[in-house]
């Protein structure tokens, strides 16, 4: 069953010379329990798609057409309060930059409790907090730390734990590991895969890192210039990439592998 169905989604950015289209009516869907990769170079519109689905696009960006169905309900026409109820319980998001998505003046525990108070009407018990930290392999002392006291990898794991507090059915990850080094990245992604199997949520994973997607996605959607140019399973993409851009991407990857940089499977 389709958890998320995106149909004809278009996003424009208002400019002094009229709207500039960033996403040109794209279609795709995410099934229950599936890991979908959304790949493309910077500027291809993949982050814009994520923000449009969550409806957190900041001006001058605006959604100019299409629909985003989540469990059959259109996110784009939801009222403000429905939207608030939907976010984090049905789909949650981990933001691109681990460094900037935590409030610098509040300790980590307060940022969990803020969410719990706003959405559950109560504070989380210490045992529950420990459980969320265990999910992402963090120690308890993180709770009393401030963001600046944590490393980039730890902050990103806090971001993932924060996204899981209300047990969402869909987790959108917007380049969650781009700013991190390869070892930390691999550690986080392994943990994420394990969690995904344990809690059985779907993932929409946005990155320009094709090797990572090839290794962990069920299907990959490749975007270029605001259009979907190809969507298929990793093995099919590897065997016979149809679009020239996909061929180019895979070729550039091949080049690195031949240089003895380790196989992509190893990088997850």
């Amino acid at each position, binding site marked *: 069953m389709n958890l998320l169905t995106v149909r004809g989604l278009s996003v424009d950015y208002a400019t002094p010379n009229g709207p500039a289209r960033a996403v040109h009516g794209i279609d795709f869907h995410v099934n229950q329990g599936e890991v979908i990769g959304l790949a493309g170079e910077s500027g291809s519109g993949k982050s814009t798609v994520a923000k449009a689905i969550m409806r*957190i696009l900041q001006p001058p960006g605006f959604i100019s057409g299409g629909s985003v169905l989540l469990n059959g309900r259109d996110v784009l026409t939801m009222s403000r309060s429905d939207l*608030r109820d939907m976010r984090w319980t049905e789909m949650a998001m981990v933001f691109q930059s681990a460094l900037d998505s935590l*409030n*610098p003046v509040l300790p980590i525990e307060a940022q969990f409790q*803020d969410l719990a108070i*706003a959405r559950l009407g109560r504070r989380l018990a210490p045992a529950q907090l420990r459980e969320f930290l265990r999910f992402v392999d963090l120690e308890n002392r993180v709770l009393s730390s401030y963001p600046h006291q944590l490393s980039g990898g730890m902050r990103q794991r806090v971001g993932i734990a924060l996204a899981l507090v209300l047990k969402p059915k869909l987790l959108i990850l917007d380049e969650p590991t781009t700013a991190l080094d390869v070892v930390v990245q691999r550690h986080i992604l392994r943990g994420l895969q394990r969690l995904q199997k344990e809690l059985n949520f779907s993932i929409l994973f946005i990155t320009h890192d094709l090797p990572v997607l090839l290794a962990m996605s069920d299907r990959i959607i490749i975007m270029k210039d605001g259009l979907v140019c190809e969507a298929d399973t990793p093995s099919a993409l590897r065997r016979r990439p149809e679009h020239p851009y996909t061929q180019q991407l895979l070729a550039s990857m091949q080049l690195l592998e031949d240089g003895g940089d380790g196989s992509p499977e190893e990088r997850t």
Partner: protein
Amino acid sequence: MNFLLSKMGLYAVAGWAVITLNFLIPRLMPGDPASALFARFKGKLKPDAMEALRQQLGLNDAPLLKQYWDYIAQLAQGEFGLSIAFHPEPVLGVIKIGFIWTVGLSGVAVLISVVVGTGLGAYAAWRQGGRFDAIVPPAVAFLAAFPYFFLAMILLFFLGLEWGLFPLGMAYGPYSAPGFNGGFIYDLVSHGFLPCLTIVLASLSGWLFVMRNTMIGVMGDEYVCLAHAKGLSRRRIFVAYAMRNALLPSLTSFGMALGFIVSGALLTEVVFSYPGLGYLLLKAILSQDYPLMQGIFLMITLSVLLANILVDALYYVLDPRTRGGR
């Protein structure tokens, strides 16, 4: 803790520099205050009176180091010498009274200005582009374009003289005896109202714009966006996410402003004949009262230092990043 300790070290050095400069400047000036005073009396003083004056001002022929040592020793005992304009009052006593009035007037005015200005700025940013944002900031900027003393004279002329709503000057009326009772407090407030209003109106815009601009920057930050997405209440986002972070830059200017409390209200005090330090300083300059001037300068510079220490301590509380340690 290291942050505070190293700051304290810095302030100790600055404090020593201030005290030393205060000692050196009168001694490096061409001529000396005693001969200037002597000349003012146009021969009505005997030459040995001049020698006595020099002694009184601490300007003797002892080696500079010895003079410096005596000066420090006197300071340590709170001994600033005698005032000439208010002869024979000791300088310390004169300054004490002026200090209380100044801190009372400007302290209240700056606090009101900071709280109101920052609040208006934060709200204007929160409703950026709205009606409030379109009207209030420009209006406040318009008021701030007037110089302090001009605003003071306008207020004094209309509200004080023409309409007679407020008294024309001084800190309290000639017929009320200082004391902790309703009548005297009413008298104090009505005398302080116009000078206070002047300072608030003239300084409001600084606070408003600093806050509005940083707040707009902070509201575009990822963590505020994430807080919205998490569905936190708007009130919580406004206070703990946006405003709390936007306040930090304002805090630095607050330290500067606290220091200027002591000196900055000079013109306002002069227009309203308010007996604070600014008014005293004017009197000291007009009557070439060197001991008093020196005392007031020392007071002003030390207050600026003290205010900055306070702000650093506040920063330590408000910004966890300054607390150091990983």
